[in-house]
């Protein structure tokens, strides 16, 4: 293969377009089968066994939760629980839906709900996402269709977790087959049942004909949904264009541009709660660095042309963010100190800080290499040389916690929780992830987290976020939109929770 | 005979561990089996025997390239192990069979001949060059070949270079392992003439290993006959060719095809099977092939017995104890 000459290129484009039409024509509305490309394998559909997004997506198909959180409005709605009531700050009563059966015919009742909560919050289950269950003290059966949940401490986010990932398992079946058996033949009460699992390759879901009506989630619309693991995004695109799959997501900006022109495909963008940011080692844990100097941090903030990156590299729908949280989260103060793109000012600040000729540092990155490269390019323009260290997330995080990292480019999805306690508090409240160790900020955040009064909380968070911005601990970057591409016959609506809801999807 | 032998082997043995193939374990091969041999100053001792009988192993022991498993090597009556490698190298030098592989193809002739002088740091570098040229004269090579690479020379010329290298340090003993068997007859005679004249001029002592008995008869004063790791007979050349004592020596001599038409090819009476050296026959190692084997040959190994001109290991020998 050599370099493509112009005529060939155009011919290729023509073939491509023609072929694509043929490919999508064969898309399987007719056979009522939707094939979906996922870049990671669903290692388990048991949401307690995994913290991965793929597991969560699959478990949403298979299982119901007590509470449903509407992906569009963020409102909580009844699902397996029909109504709930806070008895006090640590006691939650829930009335359960009657007449629901699991996919194997086992009827659902309080036994199942209480068992699930008790078992998976206990030590025996070795639940991987401990933070989603460790707030539960116990669950108690009050009536055959009513349970009471005891919390260890007041926990505002309890409903969030009850909506996801706490899926309700059939007690009898689970106790019979155990972890191993459940792994290969999971049973839930959700709209789809996994009928065939080819390890590493596909999972086939078939609509559950007996799915209960009356909940917030409607009955399944598509007969069969196949999850295909295609690790290479490139291959996903190839399959998408040739009709091998009808749905793919997390598509890059340039590819999306290319796909937008293709007949038969819909390309949609949706903002998520994920934000990107740079964190700088301001406290100097692990040794003195230039970044302990406020002027340097400000210079870095001024040096990065965030708008240009958002315009050119980030998929459409991204917003620049001024403060250390997702703008729509409760308590996310927007009126904070901002740093416009101003390389001259950055240079001046660097000179003031004693680095007229700039300096070098190691830049830890775990994803989105092009963005990182663009940031490196911007920093180079003011004389700062960033040496990219592209590593696994775990490695970067280790480095951060041990103080071995100077600057890291990170993202945060807040577990799709619309509250600053799930974002800012995570990083500035004195935990292991708090590398700044700003006692004042930590105190404000603690105050905000512990209160149930919105006004008090808001005020406390505002103070914290203003200081974070003034100190330029972070360079808040932008929100992360996801780009989806799917067959135009598909009626799919992207949501901001980073969870494609196939159970809500239908054909046009 | 008051002078001690310039080189002496005393009951020298050498064993090898030999792999017998993929599926089997290793076996012990006794390539040289309690060999005692003396090399007198100024003589040419011929060593003859079939391939695989241990001739080459013996020569490597003499050169110090292989340590003997048992026994002693003495130079001028002193054990060899006491002398260091370099001292031995100054006195004993080899000439090999294959003039194509015995010269480093990447070096020119003068470098090759000068190598011993360099290694032993003999003389100043300028003297070395002179000595190299002298040595080339000595072996009858024109001085202009000094700048040639071996690849440009004929087999005979290469063998002369190899001899020149061996002579560069003026050693006393040359171990010549089949020095002419890779050469054409017309070249062979030139090299043999050279060896003879060098011996006269320099008073060299030779150990001449050869399977060509005509060559041995022509050059050697004494001959040692080797069979399956043992010296079965030692004798003065003339005596051996006239009246060999050991049946193997006789068979060997009978097999020599001299260029005399009309004599036909003799039947040696030896069987076809050369014994497996890893599993040597009991008693006299030669008995399975010996046309005159007796019962005792199968069970007992004959002792060496002196003869008027040497010694022999055979139960048939009248001198046998």
């Amino acid at each position, binding site marked *: 293969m050599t370099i493509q000459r112009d005529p060939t290129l155009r011919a*290729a484009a023509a073939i491509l377009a023609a072929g694509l039409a043929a490919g999508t024509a064969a898309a399987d509305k007719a056979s009522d089968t939707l094939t979906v490309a996922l870049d990671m394998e669903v290692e388990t559909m048991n949401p307690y*066994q995994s913290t991965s997004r793929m597991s969560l997506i699959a478990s949403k198909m298979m299982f119901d939760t007590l509470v449903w959180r509407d992906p569009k409005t963020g409102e909580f709605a009844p699902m397996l629980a029909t109504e709930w009531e806070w008895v006090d700050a640590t006691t939650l009563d829930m009335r359960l839906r009657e007449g629901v059966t699991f996919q194997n015919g086992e009827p659902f009742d309080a036994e199942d709900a209480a068992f699930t909560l008790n078992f998976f919050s206990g030590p025996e289950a070795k639940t991987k*996402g401990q933070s989603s269950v460790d707030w539960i003290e116990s669950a108690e059966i009050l009536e055959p269709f009513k349970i009471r949940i005891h919390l260890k401490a007041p926990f505002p986010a309890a409903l969030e977790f009850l909506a996801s990932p706490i899926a309700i398992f059939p007690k009898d079946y689970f106790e019979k087959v155990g972890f191993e058996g459940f*792994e290969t033949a999971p049973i839930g009460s959700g709209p789809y049942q996994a009928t065939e699992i080819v*390890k590493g390759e596909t999972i086939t879901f078939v609509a559950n004909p007996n799915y209960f009506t009356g909940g917030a989630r409607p009955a399944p619309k598509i007969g069969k949904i196949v999850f295909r693991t295609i690790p290479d995004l490139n291959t996903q695109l190839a399959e998408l264009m040739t009709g091998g799959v009808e749905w793919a997501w997390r598509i890059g900006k340039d590819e999306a541009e290319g796909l937008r022109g293709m007949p038969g495909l819909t390309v949609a963008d949706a903002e998520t709660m994920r934000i990107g940011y740079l964190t700088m080692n301001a406290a100097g844990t692990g040794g003195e660095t230039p970044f302990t100097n406020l002027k340097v941090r400000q210079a870095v903030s001024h040096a990065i042309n965030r708008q240009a990156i958002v315009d050119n590299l980030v998929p459409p729908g991204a917003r620049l963010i001024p403060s250390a949280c997702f703008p729509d989260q409760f308590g996310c103060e927007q009126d904070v100190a901002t740093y416009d793109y101003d390389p001259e000012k950055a240079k001046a600040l660097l000179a003031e800080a004693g680095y007229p000729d700039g300096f070098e540092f190691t830049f830890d990155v775990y994803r989105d290499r092009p963005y990182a490269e663009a940031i490196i390019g911007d920093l180079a323009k003011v004389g700062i040389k960033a040496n990219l260290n592209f590593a696994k997330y*775990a490695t970067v*995080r280790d480095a951060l916690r041990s103080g071995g990292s100077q600057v890291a480019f990170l993202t945060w999805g807040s577990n799709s929780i619309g509250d600053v306690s799930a974002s800012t508090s995570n990083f500035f409240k004195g935990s292991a992830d708090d590398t700044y160790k700003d006692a004042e900020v930590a105190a404000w955040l603690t105050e905000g987290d512990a209160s149930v009064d919105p006004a008090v909380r808001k005020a406390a968070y505002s103070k914290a976020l203003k200081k974070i911005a003034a100190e330029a601990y972070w360079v808040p970057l932008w929100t992360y939109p996801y780009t989806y591409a799917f067959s135009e016959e598909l009626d799919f609506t992207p949501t901001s929770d980073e969870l494609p809801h196939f159970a809500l999807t239908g054909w046009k | 005979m008051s002078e001690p032998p310039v080189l002496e082997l005393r009951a020298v043995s050498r064993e090898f561990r030999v792999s017998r193939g993929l*599926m089997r374990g290793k076996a012990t091969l006794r390539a040289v089996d309690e060999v005692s041999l003396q090399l007198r100053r100024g003589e040419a001792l011929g060593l003859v025997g079939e391939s695989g009988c241990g001739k080459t192993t013996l020569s490597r022991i003499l050169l110090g390239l292989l340590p003997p498993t048992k026994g002693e090597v003495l130079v001028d009556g002193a054990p060899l192990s006491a002398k260091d490698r370099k001292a031995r190298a100054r006195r004993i030098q080899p000439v090999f069979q294959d003039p194509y592989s015995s010269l480093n193809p990447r070096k020119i002739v003068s470098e090759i001949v000068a190598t011993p002088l360099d290694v032993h740091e003999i003389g100043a570098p300028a003297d070395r060059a002179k000595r190299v040229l002298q040595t080339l004269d000595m072996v009858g090579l024109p001085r202009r070949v000094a700048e040639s690479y071996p690849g440009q020379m004929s087999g005979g010329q290469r063998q002369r270079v190899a001899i020149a290298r061996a002579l560069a340090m003026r050693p006393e003993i040359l171990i010549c392992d089949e020095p002419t068997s890779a050469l054409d007859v017309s070249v062979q005679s030139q090299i043999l003439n050279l060896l003879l004249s060098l011996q006269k001029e320099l008073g060299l002592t030779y150990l001449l290993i050869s399977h060509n008995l005509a060559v041995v008869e022509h050059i050697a004063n004494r001959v040692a006959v080797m069979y399956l790791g043992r010296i079965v007979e030692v004798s003065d050349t003339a005596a051996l060719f006239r009246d060999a004592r050991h049946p193997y020596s006789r068979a060997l001599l009978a097999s020599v095809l001299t260029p005399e038409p009309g004599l036909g090819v003799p039947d040696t009476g030896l069987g076809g099977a050369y014994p497996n050296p890893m599993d040597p026959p009991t008693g006299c190692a030669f008995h399975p092939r010996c046309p005159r084997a007796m019962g005792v040959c199968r069970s007992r190994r004959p002792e060496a017995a002196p003869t008027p001109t040497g010694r022999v290991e055979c139960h048939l020998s009248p001198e046998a104890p």
Partner: protein
Amino acid sequence: MLGFLVRRLALAVLVAFTVSAVSFVLLRASGDVAVAIAGESATEADIAAIRHQYGLDRPLAIQYFDWLGNALSGDLGRSIFFNTPVSDLISERLPVTVAVGALALLFAVTLSVPLGVAAALRPNSPIDHLAMWLAVLGQAMPSFWFALLLVLVLGVWWRLLPISGTGTFAHYIMPAIALGYYATPAIMRLTRAGMIEVLQSDYIRTARAKGLGTGRILFKHALRNAAIPVVALAAVQFGFMLSGSIVIESIFALPGVGHLAWISLQRSDFTVVQGIVLMLAVIYICLAVVADLFNAWLDPRIRVS
């Protein structure tokens, strides 16, 4: 026979032991699995708990010998991510890798051996030059690039072959080509060189002097002897194909051990990687032994002394 096998087995055990120890240390040093399991929202306490749960807070040497002891009794441990025994994971995915590797080898051999033989029969002929150019071009082609081009041209532009997955035989064709073409030049060269050497050998001259037909000389007398080094090379290449299919398996979305190793490494699922490394080492050594045995069958000089 037995002695040989025992010695090779001893070597295999020693190599496997060394490989496992080295990779154990390397892998543990390369990241903290506990952090990876806990996910991005985990707290320090979560991580510590996980570390303790999985025994990751014990001294490294103890962890290793613990693992080794289990491995010796056939238990390779559990994947932390999949929460399944590593041996199950491997046995689920090995068939895909082996199938692709075997097809790749088949592709390489069926292309290279006839070509090598033809080239050897007529040195400097057009077919020889063609073979040589194929070899040189093939060896210069980066395999990931070649795989992408295959996807682009055969999969997207021409739509000849399915792009990814394992549904049908056709699914395996592109991966097998992408994996096998790199081995083709080496096998072809060796076949050619071996054939040329054998054809010049004295026993081929003897065979001709016996008045045997050309086909008989070629296939009975020449090919068998020329095949000996080729078999060893093919075995080695097969071993490399099994371990070298990471890129290919990712691009073609094949659920094989290569991709399993890759994702497991990325999220520090050591037990899995450890198990795969051990398995690959054992397979590699076994292949070498099998090649030896096969060569012993081909060449009686090795078999009997």
